[in-house]
């Protein structure tokens, strides 16, 4: 298993390099422009100068190598310096700068990470927490009323877009009932009970919207997997031993059913980091999703490139984690 992991990690390096190049080429080819959002009153000559100041006048390959150097050499060195306080070289090196904000991309990402993890991550966790019992009961009582309603709700949850559920929730709970705020305060620091309550309140709506969507998908998987396992012989063995029904279901069947589900869940984790663009926008969570979409719309190539590359790393990594997890959870699987 260990050598397998090492081997996969080694193959990941060339893969990621190719991915980074393709992303860069794609972004370069894309017709949107970093100056697209500036007022039309700025004349063309000035626009040309702004473009030059962003380095856009250089050839494509140079810009790519530049980015590679900044991302793989300068940024790690910078992190190293910050952590240890040791200065390497003269300490003067160009970091990856966003064109829109003119600030280091990595700092932006670090700044956005907390709210994304809180809201999108929490929604993922809640989604899973809802999905598993729903899936388990739906499978255990297949074709019962609960199962039918569960299927219906999960399908509706999947088919109604979040931009719609989000607005419905805001109209009901923020405008009409005034229970929860419709705008997420990213500056809120949780340091006492009152601020904690406030944090919970502002998370309720976005988390609900996203959790519903996540739960819909995962519940389908849990149900299918439970159905597969419920008919296995070992379930009968457990019953023949006189094991309580609850234990049979929750220990024997669920543990087995969760193996494929866990990998599905692991594969979904990178999507947390890509944020939830629409939901973040509706509730102004301003996490990584919002960062990415504004960057894409503003053609902020360094930011988009860095974000998507980190995302690619996560995808490759979690792909590997999913495979390894499978091997760990299921003792039958050996990769060597």
């Amino acid at each position, binding site marked *: 298993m260990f*050598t397998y992991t090492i*081997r996969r990690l080694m193959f990941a390096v060339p893969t990621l390099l190719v991915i980074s190049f393709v992303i860069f080429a794609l972004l370069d080819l894309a017709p949107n422009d970093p100056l697209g959002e500036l007022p039309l009153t700025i004349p063309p000559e000035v626009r040309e100068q702004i473009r030059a100041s962003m380095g856009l006048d250089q050839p494509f390959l140079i810009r790519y190598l530049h980015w590679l150097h900044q991302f793989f050499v300068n940024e790690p060195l910078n992190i190293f310096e910050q952590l240890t306080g040791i200065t390497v070289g003269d300490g003067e090196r160009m970091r990856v700068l966003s064109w829109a904000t003119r600030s280091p991309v990595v700092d932006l990402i670090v700044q956005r990470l907390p709210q994304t993890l809180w809201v999108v991550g929490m929604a993922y966790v809640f989604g899973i927490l809802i999905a598993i019992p729903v899936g388990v009961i739906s499978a255990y009582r297949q074709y019962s009323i609960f199962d039918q309603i569960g299927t219906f709700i999960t399908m509706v949850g999947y088919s109604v877009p979040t931009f719609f559920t989000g607005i419905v929730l805001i109209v009901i709970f923020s405008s009409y009932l005034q229970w929860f705020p419709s705008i997420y305060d990213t500056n809120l620091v949780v340091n006492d009970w009152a601020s904690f309550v406030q944090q919970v309140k502002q998370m309720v709506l976005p988390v609900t919207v996203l959790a519903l969507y996540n739960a819909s998908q995962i519940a389908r998987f849990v149900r299918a997997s439970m159905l597969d396992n419920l008919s296995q*012989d070992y379930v*009968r063995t457990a019953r*023949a031993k*006189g*094991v*309580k029904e609850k234990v049979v279901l929750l220990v024997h069947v669920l543990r087995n059913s969760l193996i494929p589900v866990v990998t599905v869940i692991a594969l979904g984790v990178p999507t947390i980091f890509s944020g939830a663009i629409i939901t973040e926008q509706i509730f102004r969570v301003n996490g990584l999703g919002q960062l990415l979409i504004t960057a894409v719309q503003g053609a902020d190539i360094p930011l988009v490139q860095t974000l998507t590359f980190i995302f690619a790393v996560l995808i490759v990594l979690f792909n590997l984690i999913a495979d390894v997890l499978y091997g760990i959870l299921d003792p*039958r699987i050996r990769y060597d």
Partner: protein
Amino acid sequence: MTSNASDKSPILRVENLTTSFRVNGQWRSVVRNMSFSIAPRETVAIVGESGSGKSVTSLSIMRLLPRSSSKIEGKVLLGDQELLALPEERMRQVRGNDISMIFQEPMTSLNPIFPIGKQIAEALTVHQDISSAAAKAEVIRLLEKVRIPNAKGRFDEYPHQFSGGMRQRVMIAMALASRPKLLIADEPTTALDVTIQGQILDLIKELQDEEGMSVLFITHDMGVVAEIADRTIVMFRGEQVESGATDDIFHRGQHPYTRALLAAVPRLGSMKDRSLPLRFPVVDVQSGEAQPMAEVTDTVAKTKTPILDVRDLTTRFAIRSGILGRQTGAVHAVEKVSFQLFEGETLSLVGESGCGKSTTGRSVTRLIEPSSGEVTLDGYNVMGLDRTTLRTMRRSIQMVFQDPFASLNPRMSIGSAVMEPFIEHRLGSKSEARDKAADLLVKVGLSPDMMSRYPHEFSGGQRQRIAIARALMLDPKVIVADEAVSALDVSIKAQVCNLLLDLQQSLNLAYLFISHDMAVVERVSHRVAVMYLGEIVEIGPRAAIFENPQHPYTKKLMAAVPVPDPSRRNIKRNLSIEEIKSPVRPTGFVPPVREYRQVGEGHLVQVA
């Protein structure tokens, strides 16, 4: 139903047990009016064809059938408790405590993701207030009792790390954990090879002596019944047709079906003075009359060049590890195997599980790429063929696989499955294919109108015949029959063997017959090769191997075969319970050069 052993009050009494399933909205009874009882320390066997309701009977006693789609009527008395009327919670306490069960499929009946120690311990902890340390000690004691070597070390291992026979022993340990009054063992040995089967039967007998429990033993293997049961119940199509002392049943069976069953039992040594294969007697289940057996003629064309000539065939599976996946060793699955097969001849390949029989069969057709050796088949030099010629070559040699169900695509009607090779090789039009398939289906004893059905709609024996029909579709010269009959119950086994013999008579086919069932091998083969750890240790005419085994392994194999003779019951074989040796060798291992000694005409034995 009275019983001559019921002077003591019985442990279990079943009265008028009727079990029905709801199929497509209608109730259909699959077990009707079963009544029997089991006395303390008694072993009762239930025999019957596949699908006759044996497993359902046992599951009904345990109330383990799906509640929504099954209905159990009658009475099941454990002592004086009426099990069918117990509330679920009380019934749960009976299960695993008073009655334990070993299931038909040891491979799938263990939870794959829990260590076996934990699974056995669970059987203890659900019924007793016992500390986990004590439970562990008890489990290790049980594991030792079922002769799992190094029980302590294997406590935390997972089911897949055990061989089939060991898993079966784990199941037994689990069933015995709570010292039940009654053990229900549902075909615990069917899928195992003879040596392991022997070990398990010995073990059950021994434990019965020690713990004093009663056993309800379900099987379709009459040899096993003869060996283990005090009394025998015969089931036929959901009904109990006969019951009595095993001896009576074997020698004075009344019901025609009982006789049909017994007639079909192959007996080792029954071929003593024959040189040619022999058909199984066919008994009509309604009348119980045996039809006369037609003798077979000698089909072996010794004079011609062999149709299949294998020289020094070696197949190894690399074992890779390390960062770069360097090869660190290899499974020497087939090692320098040489044999010849003539037209119209049956060569049987026998040997314990994992000795390389299937691999040999597959290497010959390059379904598995051999590492070295020479194979000449019907004039083709198999090892040197390119992809296209390989496909054409495969027309000459066809396989019948170990598991007929698995070898048929579940989503393809059997008509298309049989026709497919013919069409694929463009041997004729679609309607010609249909005609030929219909013809072959008739030949193997099926009717052409079954062509639109799917594999799951057939019984095991029928599926095996479909597989044979498919193999014949291309007019092959050689058929590799890989355990083609092992999983079948006796009467169907007899049918299939007879069919193979008939086909050999009419089409002059050559068979490479792979099996671990020595009784069948004895009946159908002209010559026998014994494999051990990838090598042929002994090869020769059937009579010579069976009557004059020379190699120690051949002798051991012969000793393990159960004998369908109740009078020889309670004779222990005292088989050693050593582990199966591994054919894994490190890289750079040079296999020793083997010498063979000639014992008789064509009878060679490996000298170590």
